[in-house]
Each structure stands twice: as C-alpha cells, then as structure tokens.
C-alpha cells in the first residue's frame, strides 16, 4: 500500500528529478556569474543613458539649428530611438538579475516557490535573448541587401 502511494506521489509531484547537491552547486555558481553579468549590464545601460543625454541633446541642437526643415522633428525621434534601444537591452538584464536573486534565495532557504520563480525568469531571459538576436540578425541582413540594391540601382 505504501509503495502504491509513493508511486502516486512520484507521478503527481514530478518525474523524480530533484535539485540534488550537485545541481545546487551548479546553480549557485550560475547565479553568482549571472548576477555579475547583470550588474555589468546595468552599468553599461547607465553609461549608455548618460551618453544618450549628452550626445542626443547635442545632436538635437545641431539638427534644429540646421537649415533643413525636418531638423526639429528628427531630434526627438533620435531620442526615442535611443530610449528604445536602451529598453531593449534593459529587459534581459532585468530577467537575469531576477533569475539570479530568486534562484539564489530559493537554494538558500530551500524554497520551491522562489526556485520556480527563478527558473521562470531564466526562461524569459533566454527567450528574450534568442528573439533579440534573431531580430537584430534580420535587421542586419535587410540592411545589407537594401544597401546592395540601393548601390545597384544608383549605377
């Protein structure tokens, strides 16, 4: 009877995979480096933001003072573009940081819920990085082909 019940518990809870000491060790090392990378990422985003404020402002002034009529409209557009790029880089860093924090706490306090939360952020991180890479790649390819077509049509 007890074996039957155990089997039921096994089937109900999971497939028998657990977070054993070896896996805990791997996870805590991953968390350590993930946190480091996230902090580096945040520093770079801050630097990017500062340089955006400086360069973007200068560019906007330059464009606004130029004789081209569109100048005034381009300034804010550049700022919005920069903000979008910064947001794009901020999202994975946030996921990475959350993954690191939650998983670390989950292991420390043996809290299943926190660990699940950490793994959920791990998933979001990889998904975002994957999609971002593909999108950037597509943009690059389109730019190259667009450039080739433009160069050929100019001849």
């Amino acid at each position: 009877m007890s074996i039957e019940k155990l089997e039921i518990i096994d089937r109900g809870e999971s497939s028998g995979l657990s977070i054993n000491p070896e896996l805990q060790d791997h996870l805590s090392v991953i968390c350590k480096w993930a946190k480091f990378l996230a902090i580096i990422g945040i520093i770079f985003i801050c630097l990017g933001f500062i340089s955006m404020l400086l360069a973007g402002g200068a560019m906007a002034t330059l464009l606004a003072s130029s004789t081209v009529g569109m100048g005034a409209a381009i300034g804010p557009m550049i700022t919005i573009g920069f903000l979008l790029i910064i947001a794009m880089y901020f999202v994975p860093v946030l996921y990475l940081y959350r993954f690191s924090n939650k998983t670390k706490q989950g292991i420390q306090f043996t809290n299943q819920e926190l660990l699940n939360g950490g793994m959920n952020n791990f998933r979001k991180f990889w998904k975002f990085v994957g999609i971002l890479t593909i999108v950037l790649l597509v943009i690059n390819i389109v730019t190259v082909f667009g450039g080739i077509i433009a160069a050929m049509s100019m001849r």
Partner: protein
Amino acid sequence: MDINEILDTGMSSGKMIINEQMKADLKVTKTWTMVLAILGFIFSALALISTFGSLVGFSRAGASGLVGMVTMVFMLAIYIFPSWCLWKYSQNLEAALIGNSQVLLNTAFLYMRRYFKFIGILIVVFFSLFLLMFIFGGMATIF
C-alpha cells in the same frame, strides 16, 4: 514508515524537486539555447572561412602574419566555446526531460555553469585589457 513522514522529511531536509512548471520553463530555455548555439556555430563557420581566406595573405606577411593567424584562431576558439556549451546544455536537457534522468540534468547544468563562467571571465579579461590600454594610452599622451 508513514507516508506523511516520508513527505515531511523530504521537504525539510532541503529537497527541492523539478516540478511540472519548472519542467515547462526548462523546455523553453532548451529551445532558445539551441537556436543561439546554432547561430553561434554558423558565425563561427563564417569566421573560419574568412580565416582560411586570409591565410594566403598572412603566409606572405611572414612572422607578423603568423601572430595574426594565431590571434584569429584564438578569437575563433573564444567564439565557439560558449556556443558549444549552449549546444551541450540543450542536448543534455532535452534527454534529461524525456528520460527523467538526474545525471543528464546535472550534466546540462554543468555546461550552463561553464557557459556563464566563461562569459563572466571573458568580460573581466576584456575590461582589464581595456583598462590597461586606457592607462598606457594616457601615459603615452602625458610623456
């Protein structure tokens, strides 16, 4: 032994499990790490082709060409290693989730650990080099 006791000791002795939610999350990571690994391999292959392409040019350049070639191969290794780690991670994880194998799961996370460690150390090294260049550049300007 009582069933409740088994469960209780299981929970309190620091035993956490891979439940269904986590399994679903891990499955998604597997897909994307595989995509990233394949993209990494493709770019490494392209870099390898360009390395062989410039091999002729390097061989004409002599000693400095050899240095350039070694650097290029080194760069290629740096590029290919994280992709390989991600590839092994996704392969092992997939097998672990299908076969419910704890050993394979541990191996998968071992590769993920190597990946994160490698990227982390790489960034530290690049920063150190950058800082050194900055300092020496500054000194060269002053003196």
